[in-house]
Every structure is written in structure tokens, then in C-alpha cells.
């Protein structure tokens, strides 16, 4: 139990710190570790938790709370949430000032420009993981394509896309 909590904290911290450009870039790595290595959750649970977290209010990446809950109960969820924001905030607290004064340095610009394509590659990796586990039938594929197009081509708030998807899902069994 204690080992699991320490593990959740260390990996939660790692994922939070490595989330360059958004929490969703760490999805494939969380899947690799939480599902394949540790067996805290199944593959199906993982994508479910991730999707639920997308639909819930609050910062992205809260799926780690659900994984923590599954792995070690309430303490696991709490540890995962703390790992998500506390270590990175301690860094921000101590180096934020410094960075604010130096943000015009060429290395800072190179850092952002250099990492930008990697962020995109990691979003693509997350997409691959999700498609592999979610789009296992033709209806899912169609819904994913529709959602992609609407989110890509319009400025509609994503919550409506999630709501529409859920509604389609519920209506389908009622008829």
C-alpha cells in the first residue's frame, strides 16, 4: 500500500512535469505504466477514465485521480492530485521570477520552438493509443471522425461535443 502510494506520487510528479504543451501528451506513457507495467487499471478502464476526465470540470489530466483511486483507494486519489500540482508549483514558486526576467533570452525562445513539434508528436501518440482502444467498431469510428472534424473546424466549446457524443450513446440503446 505504501509502496503504491510512493509509486503514484513519483510517477504522478513525472507526468505532471513532462506534460509539455498539455496534460494529454502524457497519455500514452500513463497507459504504458498504469496498465501494462503496474496493472492498476485495465486498458478499457484507462480510456474510460481519460474520457470522463475530459468531460469533467477542472484542469485536464485529472484522470490520474481515478487511476490513483483504483490503485490505492481514496489515499491513492489524493496522492495523485497532490503529485499533479504540488511539485511543479514548488518549482514555479522558486524559478518563476527568474524566468519572467529572462524570457527574452534566445535559449528560452529556442526551448519553446524546439519542443513545439515534439508536443504535436506526443498528441499524435495519445491519439494512437485512444483510437486503438476506443474505436473498435464502426459506430465509434464514425463518431470519432465527426468529433474530430467539428473540434478541428469550428470554435464550438468541446463540452458540447462531449455532450452530443454522450447523448447519441444513450439514445442508441433506448431505441
Amino acid at each position: 500500500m505504501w509502496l503504491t502510494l510512493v509509486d503514484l506520487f513519483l510517477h504522478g510528479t513525472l507526468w505532471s512535469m513532462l506534460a509539455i504543451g498539455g496534460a494529454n501528451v502524457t497519455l500514452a506513457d500513463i497507459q504504458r505504466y498504469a496498465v501494462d507495467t503496474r496493472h492498476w487499471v485495465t486498458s478499457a478502464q484507462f480510456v474510460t477514465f481519460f474520457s470522463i476526465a475530459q468531460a469533467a470540470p477542472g484542469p485536464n489530466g485529472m484522470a490520474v485521480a481515478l487511476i490513483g483511486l483504483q490503485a490505492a483507494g481514496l489515499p491513492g486519489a489524493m496522492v495523485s492530485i497532490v503529485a499533479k500540482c504540488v511539485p511543479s508549483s514548488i518549482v514555479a514558486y522558486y524559478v518563476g521570477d527568474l524566468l519572467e526576467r529572462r524570457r527574452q533570452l534566445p535559449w528560452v525562445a529556442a526551448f519553446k520552438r524546439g519542443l513545439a513539434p515534439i508536443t504535436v508528436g506526443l498528441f499524435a501518440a495519445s491519439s494512437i493509443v485512444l483510437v486503438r482502444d476506443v474505436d473498435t467498431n464502426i459506430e465509434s469510428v464514425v463518431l470519432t471522425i465527426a468529433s474530430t472534424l467539428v473540434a478541428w473546424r469550428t470554435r464550438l466549446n468541446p463540452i458540447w461535443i462531449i455532450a452530443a457524443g454522450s447523448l447519441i450513446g444513450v439514445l442508441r440503446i433506448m431505441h
Partner: protein
Amino acid sequence: MHTNDEAPLNPPMSDPTVTSDEAQRTPRPTLFGLFRAFFFVGLTGFGGVLPWTRRMVVERARWLSAEEFAEILPVAQLLPGPNVANIATLLGQRYHGAKGTLVALTGLYFCPAFVMVGIGYLYARWSAAPVTISLLAGLMPAATGLVIATSFKLVGSLPRTWRTAVFVVLPAVAVGILQLSLLGVLLTLGPLAVWLARRGAAQGH
């Protein structure tokens, strides 16, 4: 540009519109004010909290001007960790030091933590119910589409060079298909990508 952190509420006076803007702004948020603002950001932030943070900090609470927010945002993005948590940290620190940071962060994660734990218990209880299964069968493909759309949008913002192509494809294959560890991939590709970007800038292209 002003970087004086001790006096964040005194923007440069060269711009005449600043004075009227200044008059409308709340002087210095109380600890409770900080908590309340980030509490609402955490509560309402559907589909990404960053726009909501901006709305709260710039338009509603008026702690920062649009320009000041535009200055703090890249710093929050450059720091490791969630951008919105970094903004909460920096603003809390600016107004009330460590206590301010603690209060802002607690406000931000208070509701989402309860909501997620609540959902976790509901899921444990109801995950086998037919209505849950069909709801998730619609929700999950929709959520997947959002991530794919983010990839597409971001690709459009990148310069069309061989370097872009290499540094998009390599991490996508390494992490998404070969399932290598993210840490290893970032430690390998990250410094290389930054170095090449720096060299490219130094050579003027």
C-alpha cells in the same frame, strides 16, 4: 516591458489608457479573494481551464491587464506542470507569498478533486449498468476526436520544415507505437530539438 515583480500593479505609465483601466481594477486580492477566484476556475473550467482563468483574472477580478496576462502566460507555459496551476502559483506568490500560492492552488483543485473522487465511486457502483455503458460508448469516441483535433490544430501552427516533420514523427512513433518511456524519449529528443532550433535561429533561418 516591465518585470518588476514587487510592484505588479503599477503598469508602465506611457500608455494613457492604463490609468482608466487601473482605476477599475481591484487593488490587491485578499486571500479569500484568491481562493474564490480559482475555486470558480476549477468549478467552471469545462474543456480546458485556461480561457476561464483569463476571463476570471483579467475580465472579472481585474487583477491583471490583458498585457500583464500575456506576459505571465508564456512563463507559466515554460515552467513544468499544469499551466493553470503555475498561474495560480505565480499570482498567489505575487499577492500573498507562499500562503497565497497555497490558497490559490487549494481553490483550484478543491472542486475537481471532489468531482473526480465522486465520479470514481459512481463508476465503481454503476459501471456495469446498461445506461452507463451506452453513455460511455458515445462519450469516449467524442473525447478521442478532441485529442485528434488538437493534434491537427497544432500541426497547422508549425513551420513546414524537415525538422518539424522529424520531431513530430519520432515521438509519435516512439511513444505511441513502440511504447517507449516518455522520459527517455524526451531526454533524447528534447535537447536535440532545442539545440537545432537554437542553431537555426543563430544562422538566421
